[in-house]
């Protein structure tokens, strides 16, 4: 088959708390649809083989690589992207901690790091350094800001305890 005519399908998905109906090509990844169809470009495209984690989003409470799934697979799901982290009273504790600790250098990996860290803390609100490192092992930072990123997650944990 050629790629001139894509099969389309309508999916229902909650994105950052808002229920949406989307008409998606069945051969487009979730990442494609987020970035190209609905302009949620906070989620980054990088390795597209599931090694870098820049495309990490949270689907039904678990962090996943949006480059490794078709958009149509998210049908009926609850999806969160980096755009949804900020609440009515500003940045999330994690986002603020990333800023305070200087965790973002070039910034490209940060949306993925934030989503992986958010999912980690929702599951394990008080992780050890090792658990943070394992939880973020699927997210590469080519500026090698791992120390600052780990410190930021720990700072967010302390913030949450107050």
């Amino acid at each position, binding site marked *: *088959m*050629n*790629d*001139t*005519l*894509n*099969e389309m*399908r309508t999916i229902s998905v909650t994105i950052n708390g808002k229920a949406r109906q989307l008409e998606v*090509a*069945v*051969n*487009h*990844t979730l990442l494609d649809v987020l970035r190209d169809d609905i302009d949620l470009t906070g989620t980054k495209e990088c390795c*597209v*083989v*599931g*090694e870098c*984690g820049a495309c*990490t989003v949270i*689907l039904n409470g*678990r*962090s*996943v*690589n949006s*480059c*490794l*799934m*078709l958009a*149509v*697979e998210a049908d009926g799901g609850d999806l969160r992207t980096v755009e949804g982290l900020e609440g009515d009273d500003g940045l999330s504790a994690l986002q603020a901690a990333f800023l305070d600790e200087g965790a973002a250098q070039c910034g490209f990996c940060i949306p993925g790091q934030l989503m*992986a860290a958010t*999912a*980690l803390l929702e599951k394990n609100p008080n992780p050890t350094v090792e658990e943070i490192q*394992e*939880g973020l*092992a*699927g*997210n590469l930072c080519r500026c090698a800001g791992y120390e600052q990123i780990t410190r930021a997650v720990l700072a967010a944990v302390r913030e949450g305890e107050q």
Partner: protein
Amino acid sequence: MNSFHYARPETVADAVSLLDEYGEKARLLAGGTDLIIELRNRWVEPEIVIDVKRIPELAGGITEQDGVLSISAGTVMTDIVEDERVQRHFPALAEAAVVVGSVQIRARATLAGNICNGSPAADTAPPLLVYDAVVVVAGPGGTRRLPIDDFIVGPGKTALERGELVIAVELPIPQRARGSAYTRLTRRRGTDLASITLCAGVDADGDARIAYGSVGPRAFLVRDESGILGDPNIPIEDKVEPLDRIFSLASPSLKSLRASPDYRLAMLRVLGARALETALGRLTKEEVVR
């Protein structure tokens, strides 16, 4: 990615009939962590992608019945790692599942997909071999059960025939004390394919077996005929020869970039001894508990 038809059957029968109709031109989609890469790179160009995740029989999670733990085909690595029964009865499977890819990969990748993909480096193959797993397969002729050793054939190849798909992987719960352990060799921790995968299992009666992968076209299961490996009173230094016999099937590829054949063969002995020691230690503990 080329265009393709997308089907999301709601029954096993519908999935089987689509598979039967399209044959080689169909690809099954479970976790997708391998398939999406193959589609994007046009390594595979199916006419239809059949998403099996919404079929109730495949989405049933992990259930225990009549001394068998059944892992439905849609079950992801994260669910296996977190399952208390898997941890208790099949610790080496939990150890293998928890090192697959990353947190994100484990939230999507399925056990059945790991086996069906047919990689010689599949992390879960050695523990499934040691645990005598049975693969439940549905097809045009009904359902059949295959020992995992018969299901795994070679690189990218399984015993699945036209129209067939895996419904579940069954693990018989051991009736007596058993120690087992999984270990692997990688270049780095996390998101790496293994240069060696290895699982050792020892029963209370001294029956020992080791399964190892990534050093040949498929993972091999070998039972110890010497009676030496499963004896906790024999020091590991005296187990070198029987261990070498276990590893006689290894034929690591010269072409692999991950590790040289010499290095793999040398490390195979190290990992084998290590996993065996861990398994024996766990067996002793298990016997105390019982």
